[in-house]
C-alpha cells in the first residue's frame, strides 16, 4: 500500500509536470484494491477496470509498465507471462462479461481458479454489469465482483447513480450473495474476499462485494473535484485513510513502528524513482509497433499502408 501510495502520488506529480498523460489516482482506495487481491492464489485472475494500481502491483504487473501505460504507450500493458491480469479496460463496465468468460473457462476445464473483477459505483449502471452478473448467476461461475463504491462517478454522486440503498443489495437480482464491506479496512476486505473465493472454489458461484470507500484525489488529473464536492466531506474521509488505519492497527498489535514506517516509505520512493526512470526512458513505438498487433499476420493491404507510411516519413521527415 505504501508503494502504491508513493507510485500514485508520483504519477500525479509527473502528469502535472507534463511528463505523463491523464491518470486516475487511487489515493484512498488502496485497501479497497489490495484487500480482495490478497485472497487470491497464483492461478487466479484479476480483471481490472482502470483504477486498480494497487491490485495490479500486488499481482505482479511491473510498476514501470504501469507508468509506461499511463504515459501513453501500449507497451505498458504487456505484463509478463504467468501474470493472470488483463490490460486495463477503459469503457466502464465492459470488463464484467470478460471476467465471467474467464472464470467459466476455468470451471469448464475443472480447474479451481477464480476471477476477481473490479468495477466502480458508476459502473453498476451499465448494461455490462447487469448482463454479466446475471449470466454469472445462471452459469454459477467462480467470479468475485468487487465494486469499489468510492461515492462518485466523476462528478455524479452515488445517490444520483442509483436509487438502491446499497450496491451490495443489487446481488438480489442475480440470485447470489452481495456483501457490504468497509472499503478502507484492508483486513475486512481480505476476509470477505477470502470467503467469496472459497465459495467460488466450492462451485457455489459468484459473490458481489461492495467496498465502501472514497476517492481522495480527483477523478483523473484532468478533473477538478472541488467543482462538485466539499472540503468538509474530503476531510472526513481523509481521517479514514486506509494506510493510517492499517498502520494504527499494526502499531497497536506491536507489529510495526516508526522506524519500519520510515524505512517502508524510503524504500518505496527509491523503487518508484527507478521504475519511473525505466518507464520514461522507454522508446516511443515505431510505425511497425503501431501496425503489427492488428492481426496475427499482417494482411497485404495493411502491409502496403505501412510501407507507404515509412516511405513518406522517411522521405519527408514527417511533420
Amino acid at each position: 500500500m505504501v508503494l502504491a501510495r508513493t507510485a500514485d502520488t508520483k504519477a500525479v506529480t509527473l502528469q502535472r509536470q507534463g511528463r505523463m498523460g491523464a491518470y486516475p489516482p487511487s489515493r484512498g482506495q488502496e485497501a479497497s484494491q489490495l484487500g480482495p487481491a490478497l485472497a487470491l492464489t497464483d492461478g487466479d485472475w484479476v480483471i481490472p477496470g482502470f483504477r486498480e494500481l494497487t491490485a495490479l502491483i500486488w499481482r505482479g504487473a511491473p510498476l514501470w509498465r504501469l507508468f509506461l501505460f499511463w504515459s501513453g504507450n501500449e507497451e505498458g500493458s504487456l505484463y509478463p507471462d504467468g501474470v493472470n491480469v488483463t490490460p486495463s479496460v477503459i469503457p466502464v463496465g465492459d470488463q464484467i462479461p470478460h471476467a465471467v468468460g474467464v472464470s467459466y473457462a476455468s470451471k469448464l476445464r475443472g480447474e479451481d481458479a477464480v476471477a476477481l473483477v473490479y468495477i466502480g459505483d458508476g459502473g453498476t449502471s451499465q448494461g455490462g454489469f447487469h448482463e454479466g452478473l446475471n449470466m454469472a448467476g445462471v452459469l454459477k461461475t467462480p467470479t468475485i465482483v468487487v465494486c469499489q463504491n468510492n461515492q462518485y462517478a466523476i462528478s455524479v454522486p452515488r445517490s444520483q447513480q442509483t436509487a438502491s440503498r446499497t450496491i451490495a443489495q443489487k446481488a438480489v437480482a442475480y440470485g447470489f450473495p452481495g456483501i457490504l464491506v468497509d472499503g478502507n479496512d484492508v483486513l475486512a476486505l481480505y476476509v470477505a474476499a477470502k470467503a467469496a473465493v472459497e465459495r467460488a472454489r466450492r462451485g457455489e458461484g459468484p459473490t458481489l462485494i461492495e467496498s465502501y470507500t472514497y476517492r481522495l484525489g480527483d477523478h483523473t488529473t484532468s478533473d477538478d473535484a472541488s467543482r462538485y464536492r466539499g472540503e468538509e466531506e474530503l476531510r472526513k474521509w481523509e481521517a479514514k485513510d486506509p494506510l493510517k488505519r492499517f498502520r494504527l492497527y499494526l502499531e497497536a498489535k506491536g507489529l510495526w513502528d516508526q522506524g519500519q514506517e520510515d524505512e517502508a516509505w524510503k524504500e518505496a520512493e527509491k523503487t518508484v524513482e527507478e521504475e519511473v526512470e525505466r518507464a520514461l526512458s522507454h522508446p516511443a513505438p515505431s510505425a511497425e509497433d503501431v501496425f503489427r498487433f492488428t492481426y496475427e499476420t499482417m494482411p497485404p493491404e495493411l502491409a502496403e499502408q505501412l510501407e507507404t507510411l515509412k516511405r513518406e516519413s522517411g522521405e519527408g521527415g514527417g511533420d
Partner: protein
Amino acid sequence: MAQMNMVQAINSALRAEMERDASIVVLGEDVGVDGGVFRVTEGLIERFGPGRVIDTPLSEACIVGVSIGMALNGLRPVAEIQFMGFSYLALDQVINHAARIRNRSRGRLHVPIVVRMPYGGGIKALEHHSESTEALYTQVPGLKVVAPSTPREAKGLLTSSIRDQDPVIFLEPTRSYRLLREEVEEDEFTIPLGRSRTVREGDDVTVVGWGAMMPLIEEATRRADGEGVSVEVIDLRTLSPMDSASIVASVKKTGRAVVVHEAPKTCGLGAEIVARINEKALLSLEAPVERVAAPDVTVPLPKGEHHYYPSPDRIYRAIRRAAEF
C-alpha cells in the same frame, strides 16, 4: 461427400471442429435444447453437453463479452447472435475489445472467437431480421469478416474461421440457408480466409458480390452472357481484410465493374471496392463502377421489400450499362 444445404454444412463444420478440439464451445440464445432458431446447432448439445453448448440468457453484449473472456482463458468460443439486426447491442464489445485486445496487450493475449449471425433479407421476416450491415464490421481494424455463398463454402470458411487466431464475424445469408444443396465433404476441410473466388471468368465486365447475392448475380450473368456480354464473377468470401488484388486484376482486364450488395448504397462495402478500383486501376476503367445496392432507407417489412433488394434484373441492367458505357 454428402448432399447438404447450408444449415447442414454449418452444423457439420461445428460438429467436426468440436470433435477435433475440446476447447471449442458454442453459445447463444436457443443454441442448445432448441438447436438454434434456424436449427444450425441442432444435436450439438446432445453430443457435447451443456458445458460446451450453452443456452445463454438473452443478452447479446454478454454473449460476445463472455466469449472474449473465454478466449482470454484458452477456450475457442463460437457465439451466435440470433439476427444481425440485434448485433449492435454487442458492437461495443466487438469494436472496443474483441478487435483490440491483441493490440492492447502487445500480442500477449488474443481473441480467437467467431461470432456467427444470420444476415440479409428475402425471408419475409419481421423488422430487424433482414439487416445487412456488414460495413459496420468491415471498417473495424482487427476484425475479420466472412460471408459464404454456398453450403460447401460455408463449411470450409467456417472451419478456417474457427481455427483463425483473430476474431471473425461470420455472416450467414439467411435466404441461402435452405436454398440449395450441394456435395460437401463430410470430413473437415478448410477454405482460406482473405482470398476471393472467381466463380466464372469473362472479359467484358467484372461483377463482385458475396453471400446471398451470388445466385442473383449468376442469374443476371447468364442473361447478359446470352446476349454476348462476357462477365467475370468474383465471390468476395472474406469481406475484411479484402482480397482487393483479385478485384483489381480482374478490372484491369475487363475495364468495367459492377458491385452488388444488399446493404444500403451509402457507405456500404461497395464504396470501398469502388475506392480501391479507383486507386489501383483508374486508368483501366472504361466506365464508372456501378453499385447495385439497396436504397438509403430502412429495410422495409416484407410487403415492401421488392422495392428494396437488388434483383437479377437490376444487376443485369447495371452489367449492360457498364458494358455499353
